[in-house]
């Protein structure tokens, strides 16, 4: 059988060489198809990787730990003792590169010209940079300093303060009653002090008892938020909110930098400050809302989640991979793969028609020779193997050339990329599409098109091979 097979390969190779012009054209078509497929996979893989990185490397990390309901309904009260959880993480988990604790709350940001609702996130600047590389996204100004701001200790209320507090509370209550009565159609009794005056007095009392730090804590803004607030590095912004106990809290922050991540929601809504400053602002003590983990190998996220789940569940926390947190991005990556697969299938179908045509022509041209082979005792299966060998040799040679071409294209696209021009810098479902699409090379993206093209060549030449195997020697040898 081996001797037979080498004979078949020899005849197949020489037949291809005999019609080298035709073989070259078909081979070039196959090679171009493989190269195009590899380049398509490279660009799509590159785009998917960039999209995923745009969420994992700016905000999401690879794994997150929260209180169970926090993802659906983020509330200040859903904070947990992060120090103990972090200790357990260090003890249990292999493959975790860095961990960053965060506190998160919504505030009202005011500048002299504008105000906006803002998601204030407190991070440890050094740990956060290790997890999300936030420091690399600063476009103007600088990144957060590693040290927290020293906050003055709050003062206790004296007798005058208590009296003032009681009066202001009484006036606010009267004002509220009057407003309710007005809604029922009763005449509005003017209060002794207007709402605005009472609010100003309240703020003054608050600032005297819990004064701002001597220097405003540093703050980073997303670039779209900065534009909305007309705030550039150096600008002072007052943040107002309710703390963990429901008390009003307010502090002035200084914008030190503006970041652009490409993630539209992040850039439009987020302000970032030192975790100690934000904890102080919200009276959160040492607690956190979120632990974000960066892994050495991102694809190991499910394994890490399994390793952490027991310890996290014991503390009433939930652990999720980025894929579980952002299924929309996973769907988009899958959709990208689907589009690529469709494109690749079309390219393969065209190449397969070329292969079938070439092999079919070769079979018709050589009917007499095939008839002789059958006459001298070659069995139909061996004829099928002979014809398939021609297709495999052609497909293999062309696929190798195509792989080399495809890798070359990927290398060029990886280095220089495809600029998207006017389409640049947008995001899909919060995942940034980079202004320049770069190809990324994966083993699957390179070998799959080559192997699939080879399989397609085999399949496409099956029909001509069966025709060849069915050759009637007597009829075939009569042909001139």
């Amino acid at each position: 059988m081996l001797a037979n097979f080498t004979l078949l390969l020899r005849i197949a190779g020489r037949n291809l060489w005999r019609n080298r012009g035709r073989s070259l054209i078909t081979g070039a078509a196959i090679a171009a198809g493989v190269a195009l497929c590899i380049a398509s996979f490279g660009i799509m893989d590159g785009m998917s990787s960039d999209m995923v990185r745009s969420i994992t490397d700016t905000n999401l990390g690879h794994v997150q730990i929260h209180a169970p309901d926090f993802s659906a309904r983020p509330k200040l009260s859903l904070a947990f003792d992060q120090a103990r959880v972090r200790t357990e993480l260090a003890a249990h988990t292999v493959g975790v590169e860095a961990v960053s604790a965060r506190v998160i709350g919504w505030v009202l940001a005011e500048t002299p010209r504008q105000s906006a609702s803002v998601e204030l996130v407190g991070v440890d600047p050094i740990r956060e940079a290790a997890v999300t590389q936030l420091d690399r996204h600063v476009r103007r100004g600088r990144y957060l300093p590693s040290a927290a701001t020293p906050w003055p200790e709050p003062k206790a209320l004296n007798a005058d303060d208590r009296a003032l507090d009681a009066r202001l509370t009484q006036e606010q209550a009267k004002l509220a009653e009057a407003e309710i009565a007005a809604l029922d159609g009763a005449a509005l009794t003017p209060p002794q002090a207007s709402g605005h005056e009472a609010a100003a007095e309240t703020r003054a009392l608050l600032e005297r008892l819990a004064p701002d730090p001597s220097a405003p804590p540093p703050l980073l803004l997303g670039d779209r938020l900065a534009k909305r607030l007309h705030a550039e590095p150096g600008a002072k912004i007052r943040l107002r909110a309710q703390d963990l106990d429901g008390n009003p809290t307010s502090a002035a922050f200084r914008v030190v930098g503006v970041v652009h991540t490409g993630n539209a929601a992040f850039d439009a809504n987020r302000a970032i400050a030192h975790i100690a400053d934000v904890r102080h602002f919200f009276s959160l003590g040492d607690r956190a809302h979120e632990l974000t983990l960066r892994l050495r190998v991102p694809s190991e996220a499910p394994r890490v989640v399994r390793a952490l789940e027991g310890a996290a569940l014991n503390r009433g926390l939930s652990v999720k991979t980025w894929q579980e947190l952002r299924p929309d991005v996973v769907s988009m990556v899958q959709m990208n793969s689907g589009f690529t697969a469709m494109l690749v299938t079309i390219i393969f179908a065209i190449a397969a028609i070329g292969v079938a045509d070439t092999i079919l022509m070769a079979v018709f041209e050589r009917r007499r020779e095939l008839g002789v082979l059958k006459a001298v005792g070659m069995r139909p299966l061996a004829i099928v193997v002979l014809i398939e060998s021609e297709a495999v040799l052609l497909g293999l040679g062309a696929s190798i050339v195509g792989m080399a071409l495809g890798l070359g294209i990927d290398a060029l696209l990886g280095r220089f990329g495809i600029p998207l021009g006017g389409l640049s810098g947008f995001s899909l479902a919060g995942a940034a599409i980079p202004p320049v699409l770069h190809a990324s090379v994966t083993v699957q993206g390179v070998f799959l098109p080559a192997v699939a093209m080879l399989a397609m060549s085999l399949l496409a030449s099956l029909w001509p091979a069966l025709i060849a195997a069915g050759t009637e020697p007597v009829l075939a040898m009569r042909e001139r």
Partner: protein
Amino acid sequence: MSETSRAPVVELRNLTKTYRQGHVEVRALDGVALSVDAGDFVVLAGPSGSGKTTLLNLIGALARPTSGEVRVGGRDLGAMNGRELALLRRDHIGFIFQAYNLLPVLSALENAELVLELQGRSRAVCRERAESTLRSVGLADLVNRRPGELSGGQQQRVAVARAIASARTLVLADEPTANLDSKSAESLLDLMVELNRGHLLTFLFSSHDPRVIARGRRVVRLEDGRVVADERAG
């Protein structure tokens, strides 16, 4: 199928073959009966259309009869499937065609090795037998030439080498000298006679050339698909 077997190498009983050409049924063979012994040198003679090629095709298991029986080496071809017929052709029957029918992509040596390789013989055996056979047909110096680089007579000698290299007992030749000049034809016939005598090969070939027919030890004449004469020389 032993070379020394006393049973007829070929036995034909009441053999009929009809073709359909459009609406017309053509009777190519009509009740042919024939027996060929081992070591015979038989010429099938007759004009074009007399049924010579059809008869060789049926004996060579390249076509099936409409009715009647073909036995080669005692085996009834009608009872064999396609695979068995292919093996029979590979192992027991050598073919020489009018148009040589060598594979143009193989050298003379590789063409002579072809059937040996199909039989699964070792590389060394294939090489040794093919070289020795090509030597015996006078082509020792041309073994590496492709068919396109050989004359008609040389190509037909390669075809003879291919037919006999695997030591088969029955050689069927359809008008083997038809495309050759008289000198090459004479030389080929000398070679066939020598192989018949020296290797005890059974030759059954067709021709309508009187010079070729004169070389046959037995001449079977066909007309309109029927055997009209069966003569032995001397």
